[in-house]
């Protein structure tokens, strides 16, 4: 450890001395320079572990994948880092992966602009994930090479640019990687001269969010939205363009309407009001390409009817009658996906996508006796724009007195909802359908109700459903 430190000092003292003299010759005072709180030691691994560095393998990995190698080193260094990626099926671990953390409290990396190292492998391969800023303590400033790192069988220099080094005044995550076998075969790779540098060859910061695309997203009020596919492409002279994925924490996000979409300190977006807002971002003064237009979806109005007059199938207000499923995935013609899997802070919502038809079933001892009920209630939110002829049918199925499908006493009725029905379907908002059971022509029995079925023309493909219940007035 001492050797490394001395070597480093020898190399750098003369340059900093010159710098100091130059500044001192020009400026009268150097007051105000404060000592950095954390070490600026740029070395992660040169001839051995740098001071404070500890090794943390990921769970499920081959725990002894990492070793210090004195044979295969870059240049004439005395040691390199060796990583052994296991074969497929290796009982010691399915892949190799770890992070290396500075456990002396972290380092101030703000004067560098890249993590650099030399790498070679026993066979040409792509290391899936490799970067810095992963520290097991929130990974606030995590960075990884986009698309993995291609490695050859000879030593090559790798440069991983820092998106905005001014953020890294106390970073513990010095280095991390994660990768698996190639075509089932394990292999080894070596890394040497792993350190942070300030390279003049890095330029042309081109940040992006949402992969550089202008995307759209619908988010429930009360939910958070994480901006996707965030990163930055740099140009490194002689190496070409290098893209890294980056944590949102490197970016400053801007909302066109903070009363709809508010930006949190960690870069996530909280949807707090109705309407739409577009999110853009800036990295270190450079506007990112890409944006996301967020449409806020309010929750359906909360039911107000007295529970004594209600038999509920799906709501957060009432005790629900049990069901077999909210989507039967009926083969072979059903395309509809989705069920009761959206939970907005305890408020469950059903989202059906690619809707053509879908059934909610409650058979046997779960059938509902709605003989004393007068209405069926359902809240519906159509995400698609409505065209002439579009419809959504609500069908109720009763099994008759024998309480089984078939037997000539099954009865069903359907109410068709359109843009001109009562109530009328709308795009981008909830409607509350209070459908008198008398409107379900053909539903002459209703003591063994077993299905609620939604049927669309296929054009209404994305529908949110909430608060399904029978009630009596």
């Amino acid at each position, binding site marked *: 450890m001492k050797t490394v430190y001395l070597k480093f000092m020898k190399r750098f003292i003369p*340059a900093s001395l010159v710098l100091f003299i130059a500044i001192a010759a*020009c400026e009268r005072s150097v007051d105000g320079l404060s000592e950095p709180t954390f070490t600026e030691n740029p070395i992660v691994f040169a001839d051995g572990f740098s001071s404070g560095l500890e090794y943390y393998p990921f769970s499920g990995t081959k725990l002894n994948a990492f070793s210090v190698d004195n044979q295969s080193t870059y240049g004439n260094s005395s040691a390199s880092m060796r990583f052994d990626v296991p074969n497929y099926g290796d009982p010691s671990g399915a892949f190799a992966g770890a992070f290396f953390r500075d456990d002396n409290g972290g380092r101030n990396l703000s004067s560098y602009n890249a993590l650099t190292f030399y790498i070679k492998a026993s066979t040409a391969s792509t290391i899936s994930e490799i970067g810095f800023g992963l520290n097991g303590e929130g990974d606030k400033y995590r960075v990884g090479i986009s698309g993995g790192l291609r490695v050859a069988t000879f030593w090559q220099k790798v440069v991983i640019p820092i998106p905005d080094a001014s953020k890294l005044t106390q970073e513990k995550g010095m280095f991390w990687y994660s990768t698996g076998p190639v075509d089932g075969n394990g292999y080894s790779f070596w890394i040497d001269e792993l350190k942070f540098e300030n390279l003049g060859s*890095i330029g042309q910061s081109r940040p992006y969010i949402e992969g550089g695309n202008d995307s759209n997203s619908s988010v429930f009020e009360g939910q958070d939205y994480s901006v996707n596919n965030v990163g930055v492409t740099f140009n490194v002279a002689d190496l070409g363009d290098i893209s890294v994925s980056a944590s949102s924490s490197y970016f400053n996000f801007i909302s066109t309407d903070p009363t709809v979409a508010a930006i949190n300190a960690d870069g996530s977006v909280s949807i707090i009001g109705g309407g739409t807002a577009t999110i853009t971002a800036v990295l270190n003064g450079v506007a990112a390409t890409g944006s996301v237009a967020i449409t806020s979806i309010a929750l359906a109005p909360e039911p107000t009817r007295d529970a004594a007059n209600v038999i509920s199938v799906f709501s957060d207000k009432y005790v629900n009658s049990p069901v077999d499923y909210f989507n039967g995935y009926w083969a072979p013609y059903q395309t509809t996906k989705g069920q009761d899997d959206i939970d907005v802070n305890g408020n469950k919502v059903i989202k059906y996508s690619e809707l053509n038809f879908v059934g909610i079933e409650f058979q046997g001892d779960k059938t509902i006796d709605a003989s004393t009920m007068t209405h069926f209630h359902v809240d519906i939110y159509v995400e698609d724009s409505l065209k002439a002829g579009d419809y959504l049918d609500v069908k109720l199925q009763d099994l008759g007195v024998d309480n089984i499908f078939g037997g000539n006493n099954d009865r069903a009725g359907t109410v068709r909802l359109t843009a001109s029905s009562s109530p009328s379907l709308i795009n981008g908002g909830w409607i509350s359908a209070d459908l008198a059971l008398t409107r379900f022509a053909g539903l002459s029995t209703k003591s063994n109700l077993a299905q609620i079925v939604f049927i669309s023309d296929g054009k209404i493909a994305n529908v949110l459903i909430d608060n399904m219940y029978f009630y009596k007035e």
Partner: protein
Amino acid sequence: MKKQLSLIFIFFATILVQNGCQKEDDEGSRYTKLVWQDEFDVDGSVSTERWAFDIGTGAEIGLPGWGNNELQYYSDRSENIQIKDGNLEITARRESYNGSSYTSAKIHTKGIFQTTFGRFEARIKLPFGQGIWPAFWLLGDDSNGTVVWPAIGEIDIMEYRGQQPTIIHGTIHGPGYSGGNGVTDSYALSNGRFDSDFYVFAVEWGPDYIEYYVNDILYNKITPKDANGEWVFNDNEFYIILNMAVGGTFLGPPNSSTPFPQTMFVDYVRVYSE
């Protein structure tokens, strides 16, 4: 070691200049009298008292692609050329315009300011990207068309391939040494990029010599013995050209990874005589 020393020297010089303490002594420079300049200090359009525009693809004057298979249409629109925040901005864009796929701009001082010998310098931050070809150069007067290139002489103070952001080139062209056979040398930054900061590109041109400088570092001196033909730089008057080409035989066309638009920022152009 040499490299390290010169690096330290650059750093030292930069700090001195930036802090405005004292200017580095231009050792040996005989050209100290400022005779022509444009500081680009007034936002807006380029002064037509100092500059003229070349417009089009070169086909207008029988030279399609400006003789180099260049792809741009030169315009004088503010989208392509303007003065902003104290700099001349020449901007290349990927857009369909008058039959071309790219637009850019080119200005010169032909018939406005021409001279023989002196120090010609410009402080420039260069653009980036495959197929982007900015230049700061001088061309000899053609005596109303009676003398043709390369006999008129050409002094390329700075040329640059956008895909090589650390290297600039300085070249002269004359009869017997033109096109790919020009007398040329390159200057490479070992720890910096021409698209990250401003650099001063200059020639000091006198009888039987042309010296090439980047930030006052002399990196090449060309004399008649270097030229494989007649030296045409001792009596003709030369004028200044600033332009940014897109594509061309010198560097190839842009590709899908070339970011557009690209802007060359020129802080000033100055000419000194004895």
